[in-house]
C-alpha cells in the first residue's frame, strides 16, 4: 500500500502567543517545511485613521498611543511633529530635550520587549522575565511623567503636556546606571546561549538588496548591513547635538536582528545620559493658538521609531479637524516580506523569524 502524501495547511494564530498579538499566518507545510505562508493581518483593526478625521488635532494624540503601544511616546512624537511642521511651530528647547529623553526611553522599552519576547519564543522564559523587570522601571518613569504606563499621550502640539516632575532626573540616572549592568546580563543569558544561537544564526537571512527593495526599515534593515537611521541620515529634532553611533550587523539573520537591538539599547543609554546632563531650563510649551487650526495643505514627516521609519501624512482643509491622516507604520511594511522570508524554513523557524521582525499588531492593523 502506497503512503498518501499531501500538503498540510496549518493556521498559526490569531491566538498564538508567538505572534505577539492577534496575527494569523496560514502555513502550507510539506512535512515540517513551509511551502507557502499567507499572513492575515487585520484582527486588531480599529480604523484609527478614519477616527482621526472626526477628532480635533489634539484629540488624535491619545489614538496614536494605540498604534505601537510598546513605544507610545514615539508614536505621539511622530504625529505632533507633523502637525507642528504644518503649522510652522517652533518647539522650545527644553521640550525637545524632554522628547528625546522619553523617546529614547520608549525605544529601550520597546527593544526590551522584542529582546525578551524573542527569547521566550525560542523557549527561554528566563530572558523574558529579566528584560521585563527592567522595562518595568521605564514604565514607572513614564508613570511619573504623564500618569500612564503604556498609553502615554504625553506630547502636545507645540511641546509636552507637563514639565518633568521632581525626582525624575535622579531616578532616570539611577536607572541608566543599573541598565548598563542589565545589558551584560542579557548578553550572558540570551546572546551567549548556545541553544539560542543555533536556533537563530543563519536562519531567515535577509539580503541588503531585498531589504531595500521592500522598503524595510529600522533594526530589520540595519541588521542586513544598510546603515540607514533617520536620526543620522535625515536628523530631526535635536539629534545632531548628541554623540551616538548607529550599530550595524551584516549577516541579516535572526541573530543579527536580535543582537542589533541590544546594541541599539546601549546607544540609547548614551543619548539619554547626554540629554540629562545638558537639560536646559525654560518653557515646555510653545505659544500656540487655543484652537488648533492649521492652514490648508498637506505635510509628511518621519521619525525613527523603535520598529523603523514612522511616517505621518496629514491633509488639512483649514478646519479644526484633519481632513485625512495616514500613518506609515514600520511594522506593517516590515511584515510585507514575511511570506517570502519564511518559505523553505521549518515551522519552528517561523517563530524565530517572526520574533526577530518585532511586530506590534496595534501598529500593523492600525
Amino acid at each position, binding site marked *: 500500500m502506497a503512503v498518501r502524501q499531501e500538503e498540510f495547511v496549518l493556521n498559526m494564530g490569531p491566538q498564538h502567543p508567538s505572534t505577539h498579538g492577534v496575527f494569523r499566518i496560514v502555513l502550507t507545510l510539506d512535512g515540517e517545511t513551509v511551502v507557502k505562508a499567507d499572513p492575515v493581518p487585520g484582527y486588531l483593526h480599529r480604523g484609527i485613521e478614519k477616527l482621526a478625521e472626526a477628532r480635533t488635532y*489634539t*484629540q488624535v494624540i*491619545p489614538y496614536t498611543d494605540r498604534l505601537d503601544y510598546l513605544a507610545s511616546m514615539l508614536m505621539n512624537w511622530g504625529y505632533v511633529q507633523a502637525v507642528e511642521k504644518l503649522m510652522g511651530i517652533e518647539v522650545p528647547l527644553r521640550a525637545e530635550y524632554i522628547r528625546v529623553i522619553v523617546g529614547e526611553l520608549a525605544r529601550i522599552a520597546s527593544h526590551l520587549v522584542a529582546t525578551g519576547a524573542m527569547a521566550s519564543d525560542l523557549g527561554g522564559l528566563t530572558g523574558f522575565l529579566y528584560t521585563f523587570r527592567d522595562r518595568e522601571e521605564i514604565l514607572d518613569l513614564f*508613570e*511619573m511623567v504623564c*500618569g500612564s504606563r503604556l498609553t502615554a499621550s504625553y506630547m502636545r502640539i507645540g511641546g509636552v503636556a507637563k514639565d518633568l516632575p521632581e525626582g525624575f532626573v535622579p531616578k532616570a540616572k539611577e536607572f541608566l546606571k543599573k541598565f548598563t549592568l542589565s545589558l551584560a546580563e542579557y548578553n550572558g543569558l540570551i546572546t551567549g546561549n*548556545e541553544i539560542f544561537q543555533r536556533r537563530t544564526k543563519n536562519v531567515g537571512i535577509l539580503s541588503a538588496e531585498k531589504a531595500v527593495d521592500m522598503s524595510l526599515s529600522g533594526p530589520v534593515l540595519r541588521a542586513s548591513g544598510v546603515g540607514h537611521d533617520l536620526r543620522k541620515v535625515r536628523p530631526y529634532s535635536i539629534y545632531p547635538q548628541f554623540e551616538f553611533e548607529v550599530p550595524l550587523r551584516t549577516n541579516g539573520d535572526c541573530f543579527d536582528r536580535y543582537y542589533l537591538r541590544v546594541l541599539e539599547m546601549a546607544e540609547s543609554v548614551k543619548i539619554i545620559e547626554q540629554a540629562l546632563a545638558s537639560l536646559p531650563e525654560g518653557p515646555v510649551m510653545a505659544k500656540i493658538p487655543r484652537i488648533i487650526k492649521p492652514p490648508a495643505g498637506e505635510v509628511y514627516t518621519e521619525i525613527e521609531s523603535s520598529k523603523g521609519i514612522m511616517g505621518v501624512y496629514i491633509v488639512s482643509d483649514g478646519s479644526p479637524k484633519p481632513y485625512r491622516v495616514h500613518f506609515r507604520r514600520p511594522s506593517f511594511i516590515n511584515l510585507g516580506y514575511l511570506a517570502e522570508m519564511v518559505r523553505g524554513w521549518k515551522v519552528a523557524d517561523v517563530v524565530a523569524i517572526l520574533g526577530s521582525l518585532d511586530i506590534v499588531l496595534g501598529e500593523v492593523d492600525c
Partner: protein
Amino acid sequence: MFGKGLLKGMKITMVRFFKPKETVQYPEVRLPLPDRFLGKPEFYYDKCIACNQCVAACPNNVITLKTETVEKKKIVTQYYFDQQYCLFCGLCAEACPKDALKFTKDFELTQYKRQDIKLKFVNPEQVAKKKAEVLQAALEKQAAQEKQAAQEKQASADKQIASEKQAAGNEAAAGVC
C-alpha cells in the same frame, strides 16, 4: 567549548536567586503611585462653572454635562462620566480652568454591575443646595441693590438740598456785596 554560554547564563540566574525579590504581594503590599497617576476621575461640584470645556476636550464623548439656568446663572444638574469609553488621556482635566475634574490614584475600576461603570457625579441634594444658594445670593444681591439705590437716592437728595442751601448762601453773599 559547547555549553560554556549555558553555564554562564545559569550563573547569572543563580546569583539572582539569592537577591531580594523584585515582585510584591499585590493586594496586601502596594507600590506607591506618582501624583500624576490617571486613575478613577473625581469631580468637585462646587468648583465647576459649567463651561463645557471638558466635554469639548474629550476625544471619545465620555462626558455628558447638563445645565439649568437659574437667575441668569448656569447650574450643573447632571454630570455623567461614562468610564467604559475613557481613554485616560487626561485631556479633560487639562482643559478644566477651575480644576473641577481630577484623576485620583484609584486604579481598581472593576464593577459587579454594568450600570455602575457609568459614573454619576452630581446628586439631587447638591443641585437643590446650589440652586437655593444661587437664589439666596440673587435675593441678597437684589436687596443690597435696592438698599444701595435707596441710599444713593437719599444721598443725592441730601446733596441737592446742600447745594441748594449753598446756592442760597452764595446768593445772599452776592447780595451783601
